[in-house]
């Protein structure tokens, strides 16, 4: 397998679109429940935990970019093959593909659960799963250009939802957030860790990187995207903390939607119906990018067509939608992915980048030793 992936010139996209890719892929189903999950650990300092998690993510992103910069234009599959050789490398790639596939289906299932709770309690899971998966398949067939377009339009098309959150601001009590910083370190770290699932998604950078046109500027735009996500998440958490009374926040599962309930326009009430429907546009780039990245493995590792990969993964995800029936199963599944994500997106890239760095350093030293003789 070739380590470097040199896509056609027409497939490359501008580096500044990375802002939208990173942002749209980080914002997903997780954010709807994020304030509560963090609040359970970090209490009223949850917003600090969210912000710190964002900073932490920025560091990871820096590691990733440093690793990717060691190569000309390689993705994670290529790096695996380069660093670990054919067998171990392909095995690790395969594991990562499994993780991406699991993410793909957990996003869809989470969204369907929200729809079932808020709008259609009797909607069979498989129906909506089928439609969402087909949408993703349709998009991924268009290739990276269409997917980047989806994430761009999704990120710009859902910005106004942030503005809607200003309406609950009128009913807030600012004293809920005081005293600031009186949660002990242990809870804070627990809080930071619980942000993982929501802020996950940036690991896809390791797959889209070869398609970036100006690779030098990738770091800047990636950080910008992450910064934007971090600020949005922090703001949302902060609003939830000051909006809900002390204990209420720990009792509502999806605080963001609950907050939107109070929004009323002259001709529209119960805004959450609109928001839940509209959330499909938010998760669309997520599922597209995960499906794309996972199916990319088929053409990279097994030397089959990516189209075949898309359908196989779609079938697996569709099959998975039949197994999850109850809330506790869903919770278990989500927790598993959350843990896996913590290792796959936070720990693993750091370790891998250190290995890559060492390898490059060793080979460079070997070269410089070899030259004089």
């Amino acid at each position, binding site marked *: 397998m070739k380590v470097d992936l040199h896509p056609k010139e027409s497939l490359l996209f501008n580096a500044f679109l990375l802002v939208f890719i990173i942002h749209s892929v980080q914002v997903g189903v997780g954010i709807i429940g994020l304030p509560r999950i963090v609040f359970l650990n970090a209490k009223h300092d949850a917003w600090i935990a969210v912000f710190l998690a964002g900073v932490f993510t920025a560091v990871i992103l820096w590691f990733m970019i440093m690793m990717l910069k060691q190569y000309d234009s390689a993705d994670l599959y290529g790096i695996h093959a380069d660093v670990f050789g054919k067998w171990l490398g392909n095995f690790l790639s395969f594991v990562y593909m499994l993780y991406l596939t699991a993410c793909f289906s957990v996003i869809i299932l989470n969204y369907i659960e929200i729809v079932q709770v808020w*709008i259609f309690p009797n*909607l069979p899971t498989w129906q*909506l799963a089928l439609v969402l998966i087909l949408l993703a398949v349709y998009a991924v067939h268009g290739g990276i250009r*269409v997917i980047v377009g989806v994430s761009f*339009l999704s990120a710009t098309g859902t910005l106004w939802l942030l503005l809607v959150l200003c309406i609950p601001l009128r009913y807030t009590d600012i004293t809920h957030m005081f005293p600031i910083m009186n949660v002990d370190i242990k809870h804070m770290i627990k809080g930071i860790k619980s942000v993982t699932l929501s802020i996950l998604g940036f690991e896809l950078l390791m797959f889209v990187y070869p398609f970036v046109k100006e690779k030098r500027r990738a770091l800047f735009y990636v950080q910008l995207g992450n910064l934007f996500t971090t600020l949005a998440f922090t703001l949302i958490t902060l609003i939830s903390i000051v909006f809900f009374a002390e204990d209420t926040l720990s009792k509502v599962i999806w605080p963001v939607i609950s907050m939107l309930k109070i929004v009323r326009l002259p*001709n529209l009430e119960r805004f959450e*119906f*609109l928001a839940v429907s509209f959330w499909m546009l938010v998760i669309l780039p997520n599922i597209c990018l995960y499906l794309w990245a996972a199916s990319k493995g088929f053409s990279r590792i097994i030397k089959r067509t990516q189209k075949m990969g898309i359908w196989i993964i779609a079938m697996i995800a569709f099959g998975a939608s039949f197994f999850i029936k109850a809330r506790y199963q869903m919770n278990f599944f989500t927790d598993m992915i959350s843990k896996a994500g913590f290792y796959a997106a936070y720990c693993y890239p750091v370790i891998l980048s250190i290995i890559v760095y060492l390898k490059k350093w060793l080979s460079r030293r070997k070269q410089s030793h070899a030259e004089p003789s």
Partner: protein
Amino acid sequence: MFKWLAGKKSTEGSKPHSLMIDELKEQIKSQLNVGEDLTFRTLKRDGDKLVFSYMSSLIDTTALDEFIITPIQENTHTKWTCEAIAQILPIANLSAQNQLDKVVEGINVGKVYIYIEGQPYGILGDVSKTVERGVEKAETESLVYGPKIAFTESLIGNMNILRHNIKDINLCMEDLTVGTRTKTKAKLVYIKDIADEENVNVFREKISQLEIDYVAGTTVLGQLIENNSWTVFPQLVTTELPDRVTIALMHGKVVVLMDRSPDVLYGPSPFFSFFESTEDVYMRWNMGLALRFLRLLAAFLSVLLTPAYVAVLTFHYEVIPSPLLVSLGQSRANVPFPPMFEALLLEFFIELLREAGARLPTKVGQTMGIVGGIVIGQAAVNAGFTSNILIIIIALSALGSFTTPSYIMGTAIRMIRFPIILLAGFWGGIGIMIAFCFFIIHLLKLDTLGGSYLSPVYPLRWKDLGYSFFRVPTQYLSKRPLTNHPIDAQRFSVQKAKKKDVDE
């Protein structure tokens, strides 16, 4: 080495016609099966015989009498040879010919063939006339402001209008032929130092590679050469307004004219260019901006309003505030159908009215539209078929779709409403969102001449937004739209347009 072979091949198809007039007549007759239309006029002088052969329906009789027969009859001293006769004919378009198929071809396009018996070749003179209507006001794209002139079916006339609009010597008009049997003339028009070579090549290649017997006009040509023929969205603009074409040419687009077609095709034409009207340009920029936004909003609402009604009334009653809900409930109390059926029925009815209005003669059509709309609409409510509110919503969305300057795009917008209504009836807001997501992906997948269909929104081109999405004052539009990849991007110097300092 194979020269002699090649030479033989080329003469195989065409051979010189007979030198005897009677035989020549028979030869032409046997090639052209047109009966009485093919006319022969013979002149005799001093034993010389001369024949004019032509199609009486294709030629201008006065021109034939005045410029061909009269000079030959009056100049009694000239010898009847090919060269001598060519000297005395006051006609610009003359050619010598002796190949039978070339002669027949010439007669078939309205030329007269003059042949003197015994001469090695004869003369083809152009006295053709074409029946065409005069230049009229634009019908399908009517305007308040701006030039009213519209293209006609005549290619020459259309070229004339365009050439008068743009007196740039770099305005290129390449010849093309469309249709293997009809051999319709077409012109590929672009400004050489503005239009992107790539776009010109794509057009040229696609049109010359077409192997089809007949193309019914530029709208059909556009369908034949666009990349995705399954979608409802047109990927190339057709227009009948010369000024619109002129603006497009100056922005670096490539234009195709076709004989016998009053529409002109141009590209690349992204999605938002279908919502541009020349009137936006003629208006002051702020009004243009407002109108363009009104149009985009109208198109958006036109797609969304009826499905939203269906979704809300079928599933999400909670969304409507209670005062509004009461009036909605009252108006729907008599209606025994589910909202989806109700909406589809009324949409179908409006489409029927529109289609009938378009087919009927103008005057009848208008009366029928208004009377049918009001009377049947009111009756439908009284009879308990639909609710009042739905009639308002349907009328709004119908109006919205008609504001789109491009008729094809307006129709596309009306058509995509039906599947969305169905989805809204099944899955409410989720269904609408599914359709919305689908169309986003679909539009992203489309392309126009290989360029992005959603340009300049995606890929984002800030400078171009002033042309197609917004309207900004002209001093900010110093660069031609990047979407067209113009060679010469500069329209005017920014330096000169810069504002002076106070009291300078």
